[in-house]
């Protein structure tokens, strides 16, 4: 087996793992699964590169990218507040609609066909980053690990984290405890939007800048989220592992079958995780029921 496959899997998994971190944050704290963070990824990527085109300063442009991610994270939060907390799957659908709107707007503005936007120049992610491939791998790896560590520190030592977990667990109780759950929800969404913006910048360095950036990410990032569950320490490992499976399957099999096999193995792992969790939950329910009945 060619060692290059492991490097390929690493390259793929770096961007996805940072985005999965943002999704993980949103899920752990808000018990919400939504696609609105993907808009932050696209906004981060485009915002960063347009800022570089105007200012020629990498630091300012990266900050701009993060700010764009945060702004769209805020819009996503606003949408979820409007939809309502209890409507989980409607929230998912609404956030997908929001993603389609943002993506459509970006396609049109950056050259999809409207004459009125002709003044907007084209951008390329190559102008910001002139890393070579090994430099990019190292840079991405460092950023990814750093963000993971920072997140763990945030989870353990910041009061916002505990407040957010309480809000996620029981919204009404947190209102009674004067925790201001709406403000916490918005803060967490802004934080996750920022992380998603950073992931957008990293992904754009690798894959280039195009409006369809978001579609690739959805399936993979959610698969990583499901398989990781609530154990953040394994997030990077699982994103690498799933990318490695796809890589190996594509290497071993010819044609599109290789990609189909890789995808099917990933889906199988996700299904096994889901079934395992459902079995565990039902066993826990039976145990609780027995305990209650024995009393």
């Amino acid at each position, binding site marked *: 087996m060619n060692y290059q496959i492991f490097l390929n899997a690493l390259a793929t998994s770096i961007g996805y793992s940072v985005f999965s971190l943002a999704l993980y944050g949103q899920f752990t704290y808000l018990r919400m699964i939504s696609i609105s963070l993907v808009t932050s990824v696209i906004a981060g990527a485009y915002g960063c590169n347009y800022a570089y085109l105007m200012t020629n300063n990498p630091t300012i442009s990266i900050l701009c990218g993060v700010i764009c991610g945060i702004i769209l994270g805020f819009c996503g939060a606003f949408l979820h507040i409007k939809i309502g907390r209890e409507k989980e799957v409607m929230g998912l659908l*609404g956030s997908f609609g929001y993603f389609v709107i943002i993506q459509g707007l970006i396609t049109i503005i950056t050259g999809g066909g409207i004459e009125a936007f002709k003044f907007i120049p084209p951008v390329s992610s190559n102008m910001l980053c002139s890393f070579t491939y090994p430099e990019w791998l190292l840079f991405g790896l460092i950023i990814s690990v750093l963000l993971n560590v920072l997140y763990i520190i945030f989870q353990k030592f910041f009061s916002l984290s505990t407040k957010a977990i309480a809000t996620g667990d029981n919204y009404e109780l947190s209102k009674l405890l004067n925790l201001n759950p709406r403000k916490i929800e918005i803060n967490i969404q802004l934080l996750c939007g920022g992380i998603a913006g950073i992931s957008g910048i990293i992904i754009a360095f690798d894959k280039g800048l195009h409006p369809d950036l978001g579609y690739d990410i959805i*399936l993979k990032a959610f698969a990583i989220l499901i398989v990781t569950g609530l154990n953040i320490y394994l997030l990077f490992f699982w994103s690498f592992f799933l990318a490695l499976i796809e890589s190996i399957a594509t290497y071993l099999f010819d044609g599109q079958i290789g990609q189909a096999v890789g995808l099917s193995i990933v889906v199988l792992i996700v299904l096994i995780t889901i079934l395992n969790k459902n079995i565990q939950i039902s066993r826990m329910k039976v145990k609780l029921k027995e305990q209650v009945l024995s009393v």
Partner: protein
Amino acid sequence: MFNYLIVVVLFWCIGMVLTLSAFFVFKSDNKFFLMTGSIASMSGYYFIILSNNNVSLLYILFSLFPIAIILSIVILHISRYTSQFQFILVTLALIEMVKRFEFHFDRITGGSYGVRLSTLSFDSIYLKIFLILFVFALVYFINRINYTRIGYLWEITGLTPLGAQSIGININKIFLISALASGFFSCLGGLIYIISYGYLHPNDLSNDLGLMALSAAIILRGRNFLVKFTLSTFVLFAFREILRFADIGNTVRFAVYDLILGIFLVFISIKFNNTLIEKRNN
């Protein structure tokens, strides 16, 4: 002009049929079924390949529908073991896999070249008008069923499965019937698509149509089924086609194209509830 109208109305009929397919699953099992487009695509390929090889039409129809029905039953069986979100994820992955297989087996499906329907007998305008009338009649029939005893039992099964079980309704039987109906309608959608366009490519039916059909189907619970159905399918399917060809300038069309779906989804997610229980909480 008449031919162009027929094309628009046929696309509307495809949309209506796929919406009905998603609606049956949503109504009885409360799950979002995104694979209507993929099943339509597979049935379309089956139909084109057999009719290009001069197999009799009756044989194709008699074998096509059962295959589509079995496929949907198998796929929807997965939904019994997963929640809504997990089911959406799995169906998204399955759609990708079906597309990859369609590209890979290019000797059968034509792969990236696509495959043309070579039999000219399906070009008949009378067949297209018959299909349009057939679909409208089906929609009317489904509307009538909604307000019968069967229709109300169906609705209750989707809203509160435990409640339905407790009053003696066999929810497995209702689930099976809705999976059957869903498969039938997806297959019919594929058939109408082939007859109106005469060409199929792996990227054609799998991409947008499943999501559009689902978003049209979500608002259909409750009263005024026919009005809501007509409006939602018209806006998402027919109006989109008409807008594409309306002589109002390229720039406006480009702006409105894909934004309609996004705005529609955001609108229905804010306005509509998908279970009775959620409505009570709000």
